[in-house]
């Protein structure tokens, strides 16, 4: 490089392999995919998306130091940065260099144009640099009104609007005269950067946020944390199971626009006995885990994965869901909000790109503060220090709050402090110890005279499934209270269990004797149940009781079904059998269906989706590259460099559009000669040597060495650029 100062790409080229490896692991997007050579690397490193990513890795202190760097003119030294901030900044400057937000120039540093652009013209609220010399002593002599103007502008924004800056006898006039303000246009003035820094007491920031704010909150006893966390873990697993079973019975339909309707959400919340935001969270959790499926026809059904999941040990069940929760970009907390429209659970509007990042930061924060139940405010403060950046509309603070709330629901925390299970999970330990800590499933129930049965603990799946077909759940928690009623028994018979089966099951499972009234209840319902049988073949009804056939035939309420009697004991109808069945039940009969062979057809016990589960994809950050990837990336780059160097002089340069723009920008107006390949109107490419002057409207204005005239070049026709 022949210039007075080194280029960014040049400095990158000189970095050691170790330094590059460090850079890549801090900014993995630089090698995804691996760029062809160092020029391409430098272009990518100064592209806006990559820079935004890099800025997001900075905490508030690092960002402040970056702002101080931006306030200084190139080149600047570490010492100058320290002078304007704090001695601790020296380390940060090194870090900024490491991640290539600044680059080295001899003993000092420079900041690439693109980084300055992203930080804006007014870093830390400081105005533009003054072109004229400033006498700081004059400030003390400033009249009071002028002083007041300065005071207003000290901490930014550094610009101020006045009627007309040329008006005589105003403090503005005095300040302009003394170079303490810079005119921007006829009605705007700005405080020069030097004056701003001087007035700020030779600092850039009012307050330096060198360390992360401490988490505040009560210290919780370990025993309490563990208790609360275990209760939460078993609750969450139960909620998921309950919700899936509920939706198998009462299947909701997704809205036209996708997602779970508000009414269905409310219904499910009533069923679970929790707040709606909690239900939305549970539904999202099941969705993530592929335990439910939104069918093509809109029905939201549990998937076969749910059956597999149910058969796993609680720890595995929990871990599976929590892993996904940690990684997902979906934010259940948004459900119920109104942005452009109502955001609903299971809809497509829940993705937020930094959700997983914030979640990980919160978990790390909890891990670093064992036993403390942080207040939401203090956690938000700490996370906002760690991640001060805003991408679009920021919901960082809310994300922190929701993460804490969800962590409590999941049992990662107990009483809001990190539990031992949560800690083991974050550290990715093999065994979390949940299985041994949760109560063992019980395989018996206690049937009581008031037609209730109590399972004094979590029931084994087989028993719970069977029991719930013919008993209604009355109360949930550590134990489950079931109630038997006429309708619940009827449901059991509908599911294909016989009265005898139900009785045998109860006497086998119950530790207590079956009360006689319950036996009567079962027998009574069974006696009435299934007296009528309905089939598919154009819907027929047959019944041994001719009187009943006659009754149905003459039933005014059933007239619209148009029954015809085809035999003394058989009726047929053209109506669909389902509808017929419903109508008959409504009219007070107890029919049951039968198939062509004459045996009773059972309703399927639990509905399952037939499609393959398609859990929502995870929009994540680019993962940290492995050792191997780093080496491979370096090798590619170095090879690319060597190949580039071998290019013979006289060959028409070829660069990518990005590189072209980058190089042109870099040398614009610096009086440096460049070689470019330029395609004429016919497509023939020729080599030109030019001095670039300016760029506007897709056109490069440059002095062509061949003609020695200033000529416009269409940028789109430039095939490549290289230094002459």
């Amino acid at each position, binding site marked *: 490089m022949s210039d007075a100062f080194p280029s960014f790409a040049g400095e990158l080229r000189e970095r050691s392999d170790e330094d590059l490896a460090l850079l890549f692991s801090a900014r993995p997007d630089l090698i995804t995919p691996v760029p062809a050579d160092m020029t391409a690397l430098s272009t990518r490193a100064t592209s806006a998306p990559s820079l935004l990513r890099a800025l997001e890795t900075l905490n508030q202190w690092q960002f402040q130091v970056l702002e101080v760097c931006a306030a200084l003119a190139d080149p600047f030294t570490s010492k100058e940065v320290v002078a304007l901030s704090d001695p601790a900044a020296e380390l940060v400057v090194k870090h900024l260099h490491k991640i290539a937000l600044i680059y080295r120039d001899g003993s000092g540093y420079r900041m690439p144009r693109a980084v300055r652009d992203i930080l804006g013209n007014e870093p830390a609220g400081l105005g533009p640099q003054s072109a004229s010399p400033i006498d700081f002593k004059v400030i003390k002599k400033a009249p009071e009104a002028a002083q007041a103007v300065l005071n207003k502008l000290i901490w930014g924004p550094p610009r101020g609007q006045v009627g007309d800056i040329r008006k005589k006898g105003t403090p503005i006039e005095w300040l302009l005269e003394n170079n303490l303000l810079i005119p921007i246009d006829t009605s705007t003035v700005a405080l020069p950067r030097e004056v701003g820094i001087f007035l700020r007491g030779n600092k850039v920031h009012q307050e330096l946020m060198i360390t992360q704010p401490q988490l505040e909150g009560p210290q919780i006893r370990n025993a309490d944390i563990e208790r609360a966390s275990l209760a939460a873990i078993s609750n969450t697993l139960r909620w998921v199971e309950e919700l899936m079973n509920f939706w198998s019975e009462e299947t909701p339909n997704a809205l036209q626009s996708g997602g779970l309707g508000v009414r269905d959400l409310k219904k499910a919340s009533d069923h679970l006995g929790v707040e709606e935001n909690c239900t939305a969270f549970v539904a999202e959790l099941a969705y993530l885990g592929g335990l439910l499926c939104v069918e093509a026809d809109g029905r939201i059904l549990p998937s076969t994965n749910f059956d597999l999941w149910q058969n796993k040990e609680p720890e595995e069940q929990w871990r599976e869901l929590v892993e996904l929760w940690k990684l997902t970009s979906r934010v259940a907390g948004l459900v119920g909000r109104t942005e452009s429209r109502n955001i609903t659970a299971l809809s497509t509007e829940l993705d937020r790109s930094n959700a997983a990042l914030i979640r990980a930061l919160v978990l790390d924060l909890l891990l670093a503060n064992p036993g403390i139940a942080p207040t939401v405010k203090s956690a938000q403060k700490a996370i906002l220090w760690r991640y001060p950046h805003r991408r679009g509309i920021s919901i960082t603070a809310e994300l922190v709050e929701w993460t804490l709330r969800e962590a409590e629901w999941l049992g990662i925390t107990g009483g809001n402090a990190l539990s031992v299970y949560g800690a083991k999970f974050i550290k990715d330990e093999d065994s979390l110890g949940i299985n041994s800590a949760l109560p063992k499933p019980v395989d018996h129930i206690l049937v009581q005279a008031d037609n209730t049965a*109590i399972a004094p603990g979590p029931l084994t799946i087989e028993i719970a499934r069977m029991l719930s077909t013919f008993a209604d759940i009355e109360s949930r928690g550590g134990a489950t209270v079931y109630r038997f009623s006429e309708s619940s028994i009827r449901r059991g018979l509908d599911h294909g269990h016989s009265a005898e089966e139900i009785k045998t099951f109860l006497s086998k499972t119950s530790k207590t004797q079956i009360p006689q*009234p319950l036996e009567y209840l079962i027998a009574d319902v069974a006696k009435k149940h299934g007296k009528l049988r309905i089939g598919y073949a154009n819907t027929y009804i047959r019944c041994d009781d001719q009187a009943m056939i006659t009754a149905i035939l003459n039933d005014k309420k059933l007239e619209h079904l148009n029954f015809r009697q085809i035999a003394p004991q058989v009726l047929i109808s053209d109506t669909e059998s389902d509808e017929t069945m419903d109508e008959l039940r409504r009219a007070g009969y107890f029919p049951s269906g039968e198939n062509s062979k004459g045996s009773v057809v059972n309703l399927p016990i639990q509905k399952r989706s037939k499609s393959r589960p398609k859990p929502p994809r995870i929009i994540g950050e680019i993962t940290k590259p492995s050792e191997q990837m780093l080496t491979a990336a370096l090798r590619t780059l170095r090879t690319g460099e060597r190949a580039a160097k071998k290019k013979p002089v006289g060959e028409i340069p070829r660069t990518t559009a990005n590189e072209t723009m980058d190089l042109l920008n870099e040398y614009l107006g610096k009086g440096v000669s460049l070689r470019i390949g330029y395609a004429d109107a016919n497509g023939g490419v020729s080599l030109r040597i030019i001095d670039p002057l300016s760029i506007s409207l897709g056109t490069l204005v440059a002095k062509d060495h061949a003609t020695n005239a200033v000529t416009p070049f269409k940028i789109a026709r430039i095939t490549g650029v290289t230094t002459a």
Partner: protein
Amino acid sequence: MSDGPLIVQSDKTLLLDIDHPLSTECRRAIAPFAELEKSPEHIHTYRLTSLGLWNARASGHDAEQVIDTLLKFSRYAVPHALLLDIAETMGRYGRLRLESHPVHGLILISTDQAVLAEVMRAKKVAPLLGAKVDDETVTVHPSQRGHLKQALLRLGWPAEDFAGYVDGQAHDIALNEDGWKLREYQKLAAEGFWHGGSGVVVLPCGAGKTLVGAAAMAHAQATTLILVTNTVAARQWRDELLKRTSLNEDEIGEYSGSKKEIRPVTIATYQVMTTRKKGVYAHLDLFDSHDWGLIIYDEVHLLPAPIFRFTADIQSRRRLGLTATLVREDGMEGEVFSLIGPKRFDVPWKEIEAQGYIAPADCVEVRVTLTDHERLTYATAEQEEKYRSCATTATKKNVVLALAKQHADDQTLIIGQYISQIDEIAADLGVPIVKGDTPIKEREELFAKFRTGEVKCLVVSKVANFSIDLPEASIAIQVSGTFGSRQEEAQRLGRILRPKADGRGARFYSVVARDTIDQDFAQNRQRFLAEQGYSYRIIDADEVLPR
């Protein structure tokens, strides 16, 4: 994980495993703050309610104690949110206090200005309050004390009442424990009430609630107004008080349809209190006629609406409610609690039975299959006539007659709802009948004869549902009732629960027509007793009818 007897459910019910060795200890510990909901054979259900938690605060328990108790006895981990909720609920109690001020009279005070401002803005509360004294104090119209407390309770900011009770006019009353002793639970009930100031005591029928009343009077040592359901009950109260206390005949007055005596201890009937003359409750003045130190409401579950309203006005007098079955099909239990006072004592029926103070009972549901003709009549009956149609069938009557004959040697009560039906039964059996139009004197004579055994079988209408003390009755046959009333069923069983001299058990028959609405009602009626651990046995009428 501890292996405690208690399971805390997420809907705030507590399940107590009574077969667990620690169950008794646990029951004692949770009784102050959790309400016993039902007590069947194995698992008793308690419920945590705001009211219960506030009552616990009122009697000096704090949230920490409650939470510690739950954690100590709980079998499984208790959800954190539930504990927070308990702490939060209990924290609301006592932010507002009712006090007597030497200058301003009754005042409402709060150290939390925001709370005071909130309740003062509430529409239901504002008219009950007087002038604002300062930022933390507002005066209250003394007559609105009860209404205010009720309204604040509904807002979720219960006021702690430090305004105290008036002592009333002093009157010497002592228990006359001669040859008998107050039972342990009666003593606990009376003390529980006295320390709480006002409230309801729930004890099973036949467990001696009158004596709890007498013991409360002995605590109060003041003039007492006793409100009872009917005249016969009034006389039983008088007899019992004469026998068990130092009171003599001149000190006890009866205020009923026939007599209007006002004495230091006055027993009045609900009926006379709610009698209206020209649209005005003529006898409600009785509440003010004396400086009563104690008002006892017998069978408080039957408290009629006018008395409810009036009771709200006399919040400075001590009030004791007595009942066996605080279930009202009209859902007014909450009103009873807020006006008379919270539940101060409750004990499962089966526990008293185990102690031998009430007779064990065998409940039998006799299922009757109606004849085809009866079924047809039933099927075509109008909706509102359906119950009557199936409850009064001839088939049912035959079963009742057969049962009565089977128990010819036992003291038997036959209870029914429909007068024509019970008239017929009485005539067929040739036994006397007591119904609404039977004069008091005749009723008393018949009951006396029944007690001595001169009359073995008695047919009664619903007038005998409550408060009729017939110690030797051991068989009850219920032929029809007030639809699905749970408390009626329990009260009727209560008639035969007095322990028998020879230790016999009691038997309660409920005759039910199969496959009719009668059977549905029976199921609802039996719920209260089933929840108290009484298991019904079902038999078929064929087992009863002579072949």
